[in-house]
């Protein structure tokens, strides 16, 4: 798993953190050193505010420890970044109970259905009895797409009619899941921009159906973000948190050049942790998020 995170972050490392060693060099720390650092962080999509915050923290540490060589800043930067990725509470999916419900939400095209397919396989492998429900009744062929993933993962998929009311489909699916003795239900939802008032209301309805059907459900609400997304990721997280109280992030498409730097802003502003990362198109290309491995992946030299 470490290897897969590292592998998928190799692009990031080459493009950004590889540059940090070069850019900072081992000369004296000057004002320019900090400007270069800021530039590199911004290019990793960390956003202006978070980048400035990180640079200030690194600067404070440097002053406190009387550092004078630029390469001495690298462990400090690492420390600052690691501190932002605070330890999350235990993942509720792993807590044993009769029926665990996980809602998966996000904007269009972020990779919700694919992530659910991968998660289904992953948890089935851990011995869970997994069921999926197709809550995207809007987009053409979205139900078929989830069914294909269900087949691949070897888990059943419950679906309603295209154009139906997602909340109703999900209500039925919860009863069916319980009746058939499955213990983990992933709820796929239609992609929606967080600015669409009515669609967010629809999502809230789905949330409340879960809430009313099972004690303390939904036990996790995962926001799927794709790594190439820029500053808008934070706005998405804010809006989805307000509407359906997201408890974690699935960061997808990390196998591309996308850097995923915006998760630092999401941790810092909202305290919402990353739970899984998607690292490729294969069904096994998903891994639980490990903050140490994530940062190791950002900094370590590529394996020779």
């Amino acid at each position, binding site marked *: 798993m470490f290897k897969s995170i590292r592998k998928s972050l190799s692009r990031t490392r080459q493009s950004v953190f590889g540059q940090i060693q070069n850019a900072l060099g081992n000369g004296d720390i000057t004002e320019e050193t900090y400007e270069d650092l800021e530039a590199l962080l911004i290019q990793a999509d960390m956003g202006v505010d978070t980048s400035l915050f990180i640079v200030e923290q690194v600067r404070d540490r440097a002053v406190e420890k009387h550092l004078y060589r630029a390469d001495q800043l690298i462990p400090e930067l690492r420390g600052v970044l690691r501190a932002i990725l605070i330890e999350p509470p235990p993942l509720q999916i792993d807590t044993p109970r009769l029926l665990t419900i996980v809602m998966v939400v996000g904007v269009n095209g972020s990779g919700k259905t694919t992530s659910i397919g991968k998660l289904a396989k992953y948890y089935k492998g851990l011995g869970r009895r997994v069921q999926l429900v197709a809550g995207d009744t809007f987009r053409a062929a979205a139900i078929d797409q989830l069914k294909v993933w269900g087949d691949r993962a070897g888990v059943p998929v419950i679906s309603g009619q295209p154009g139906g009311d997602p909340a109703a489909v999900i209500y039925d699916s919860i009863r069916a899941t319980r009746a058939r003795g499955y213990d983990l239900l992933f709820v796929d939802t239609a992609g929606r921009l967080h600015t669409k008032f009515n669609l967010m209301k629809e999502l809230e309805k789905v949330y409340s159906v879960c809430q009313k059907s099972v004690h303390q459900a939904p036990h996790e609400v995962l926001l799927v973000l794709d790594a190439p997304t820029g500053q808008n*990721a934070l706005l998405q997280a804010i809006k989805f948190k307000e509407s359906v109280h997201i408890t974690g992030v699935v960061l997808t498409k990390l196998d*591309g050049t996308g850097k995923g730097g915006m998760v630092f802003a999401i941790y810092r502003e909202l305290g919402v942790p990353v739970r899984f990362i998607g690292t490729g198109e294969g069904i096994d290309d998903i891994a639980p998020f490990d903050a140490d491995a994530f940062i190791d992946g950002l900094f370590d030299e590529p394996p020779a």
Partner: protein
Amino acid sequence: MFESLGNRLQGVFDGLQRRGKLTEADVDAAMREVRLALLEADVNFKVVKQFVKRVRERAVGVEVMQTITPGQQVVKIVHEELINTLGEPGRLELGLQNPTIIMLVGLQGSGKTTTAAKLALHLRKKGSRPYLVAADVYRPAAIDQLQALGRQLDIPVYDEGVNGRPPTICANGVAKARESGATVVLLDTAGRLNIDDMMMDEIKAIKAATDPIEVILVADAMTGQEAVRVATDFNNAVGLTGLIMTKVDGDARGGAAISMREVTGVPIKYLGTGEKLDGLELFHPDRMASRILGMGDVLTLIEQASEQLDEEETQRAGERLMSGKFDLEDFLQQMQQIKKLGPLGKVLGMLPGMGQMMNDVDLSGAEGELKRVEAIIYSMTPKERRNPRLLKASRKRRIAAGSGTSVQEVNQLLRQFREMQTMMKQLKSSGAGRRGALSNLLGGKF
């Protein structure tokens, strides 16, 4: 969360009331804000650097006009330079090839399939006979999706199932389209990462097999710093002829548009908005520039206003406003004019600074509120509308019953109306010109 550049620059120049030329010191202070604003809008770091350099060169020594502040002057220059960078909107090359072959490429989830269907519909409306080819054999149900969209629009879709080779599928699709007498073929290719050599070789092969006259990169407007890499890699691989930015109806600033345009030099041809299949808009550089700067889309609003509003009516109402004779009848008419501009949410979203606020407003409520106000005024006699002071308890009860509201709601409306009148009087005495009843009214009501 995001401050608009205008506000930021206003801060820099605060207290700086003098006129004259913009000095180097002024410009330097401003350029830091410009840089941050663009970075916050997701414009690529390197592109920002170049951009700021160009603005700086233009700004130093510029005469600050009498009527505006130095901050506004800088915003104006930035805005103009953004428009230059965004370039002219592109048009599709139709008619040079028979059938015209348009290939859509992009990352996973950028919206290629939806865009293919939108484009097909758009081109049919313009008189072409479109034909779709489903060449995404990888994503589960991608072909089904395009087939379903094709059925909705009644546009033919060619596919060979998931076992075909995409270059062959596309070549066969083009041949079929030609046979059927189609004039435009849209190739919907699979989403791919720009660093996946095998997949990039595949689109090169598709291009070689079909010789499309248009190769369009479909890109998510929410893309961050990566935009440059993505656009460069696709451009190097298949030679792009245009860009379509999707999901523009969100609240992303869309700085990716600038980055992609700058590094590829190809024009932006359309914007994708919304999930409905008619959600494809022409690209307007000036509006995109305003959006990137967080200035709101005033231009679209003004354009719609001038298209929809009865100029004379507005003029007359403006005069009545200024002369203090504005009554509930005028109020009603103004409200109806505003309603012509489209759903309230869309109208408000175009106002500067409102984009962010809009997220916090329950607009379905606001629409209802407008309807209620209308109903109340309709339940008054013309005499009452012209002279709201006539309204005493008994008349109010009648109006409330007539409009299905309560006396409290009638009172609330009257209070708001009085407040507005007072405000108008103040505006009048402070000499705010005749910018029109519309903006006053919008400012007064919301």
